[in-house]
């Protein structure tokens, strides 16, 4: 580059393939699906990645696969609905890698179809505890580390287009996903002065959960593909992980409080 006119900050843009080198990320629910894809993409971007999974049987192989590619990862068994477990995860992460710049909360349980008039306490608890309490713990417990990251602090919450549109089949899913979006907006306003950006990704990707939903409802796949501009369902690493990597990088340093809908061009209501 022959000059720095128009550039901000330190001047030269970081165009390396590994924009996250030296940074550490936690990805919850990274034992499969979108979380796994994000963990792999952040590691490929140079970050040390903690695969926070509820079960070692799913988390360990993801971390091992990342290490097999010559990148840094560790699995820490974590229950996102427990303050103690989340605190332990963050403590261990910093003990092992020395810092925490990027917190990604993706873990979710509770996508069982239901009628609102018959909503069970158990299904409500699953939705509320994993999506909303998990986001709360991710944010409040990671805050000391994100605010110490010198402007590189990133909180990324994985939400859903359903959190904007409402859902006829899984009605209680929408409010918990909307709650995450509101949290991101308010936190982005509150944490700007701490150099932390807070954003959401609303993905549609080929995950074990979606594949299982297709088995129960074969028409669903056709409907999603037909409604999607790009005519295909997203890949967790290539399509969703890459967006998380962008949000985690310096390139997205001026983006905060936003939801990036990453669904191949289906929902366009933002």
């Amino acid at each position, binding site marked *: 580059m022959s000059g720095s006119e128009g550039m901000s900050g330190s001047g030269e843009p970081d165009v390396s393939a590994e924009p996250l080198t030296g940074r550490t990320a936690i990805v919850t629910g990274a034992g499969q699906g979108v979380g796994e894809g994000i963990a792999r993409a952040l590691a490929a971007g140079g970050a040390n990645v903690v695969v926070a999974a509820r079960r070692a049987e799913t988390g360990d192989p993801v971390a091992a696969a990342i290490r097999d590619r010559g990148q840094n990862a560790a699995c820490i068994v974590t229950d996102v609905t427990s303050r103690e477990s989340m605190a332990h995860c963050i403590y261990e992460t910093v003990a092992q890698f020395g810092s925490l710049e990027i917190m990604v909360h993706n873990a979710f349980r509770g996508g069982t179809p239901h009628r609102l008039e018959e909503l069970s306490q158990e299904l409500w608890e699953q939705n509320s505890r994993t999506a*909303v309490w998990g986001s709360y713990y991710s944010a409040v417990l990671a805050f000391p580390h994100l605010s110490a990251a010198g402007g590189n602090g990133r909180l990324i919450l994985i939400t859903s287009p359903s959190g904007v549109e*409402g859902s006829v089949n899984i009605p209680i899913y929408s*409010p918990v996903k909307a709650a995450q979006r509101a949290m991101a907006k308010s936190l982005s306003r509150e944490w700007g002065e701490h150099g932390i950006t807070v954003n959401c990704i609303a993905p549609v990707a080929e995950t074990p959960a979606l594949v299982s939903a297709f088995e129960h409802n074969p028409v669903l796949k056709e409907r999603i593909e037909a409604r999607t501009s790009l005519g295909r369902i997203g890949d967790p690493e290539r399509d969703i992980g890459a967006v998380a990597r962008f949000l985690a990088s310096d390139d997205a340093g001026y983006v905060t409080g936003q939801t990036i809908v990453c669904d191949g061009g289906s929902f366009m209501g933002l």
Partner: protein
Amino acid sequence: MSAPQDDRSLEGRIAVVTGAERPLVAGLALALRSAGAAVAEVSSDEVRARTSAEAAFAAAAATLGGPVGIVVHAAIPEIAFEAIDFDQVDDARWEAVWEVTMSAAIHVLQLGFEQMRGRGGRFVFVTPTISMSGAARLVPYTTAVEGIRLLAKSAARQWGPDGVTVNCLAPAPEHFPIGVASIDVSLAPPALGGPGDAALDLGPVAVFLAGDASHALTGATLCADGGVWMAP
């Protein structure tokens, strides 16, 4: 500006209004009554627990002489309005704002739907624009309000075939004791000059959403905030 005193479009209708301890909500209740509805005013505390919420809905139907056909839901625990740095929020507060707001909304939806099933009905959720704009030091509050706003959309999608509509009425932040003014959430001042009067300005919008004229509208959020929040 004058009250629409000739509007009797809710004559014979029975309404429950929750969160009635707030002046804004009392104003909405007044507007429903002026339009002819019989209104039971219920406090936020009364819909907090399932049993007392059940009692409130049963009492409304019994004393007002028929099934409830209109529910205006504005209940929210007082603690939700307290501004606080997010890193000072503890589990007890998160429970008291998020869980209590959501469970009350679920009680109200389920109990209202029980009486509307087979007859149709109208839900109007009061969801201030601040949940869409976001606000520093109000993370628990905005999170909870956006939760109930999307709960309304999901309910709208499920209960449309039953003739039940569920919409949101979004007032300006000035109507709530949260220390936020419209000018804080937008670069532009309110196009209509201010946040409006609960009964005279927001009331007619609530009456519209509660009446027959809005039968083709569901899952919508109407921002009656004097022309500040214009997205989408």
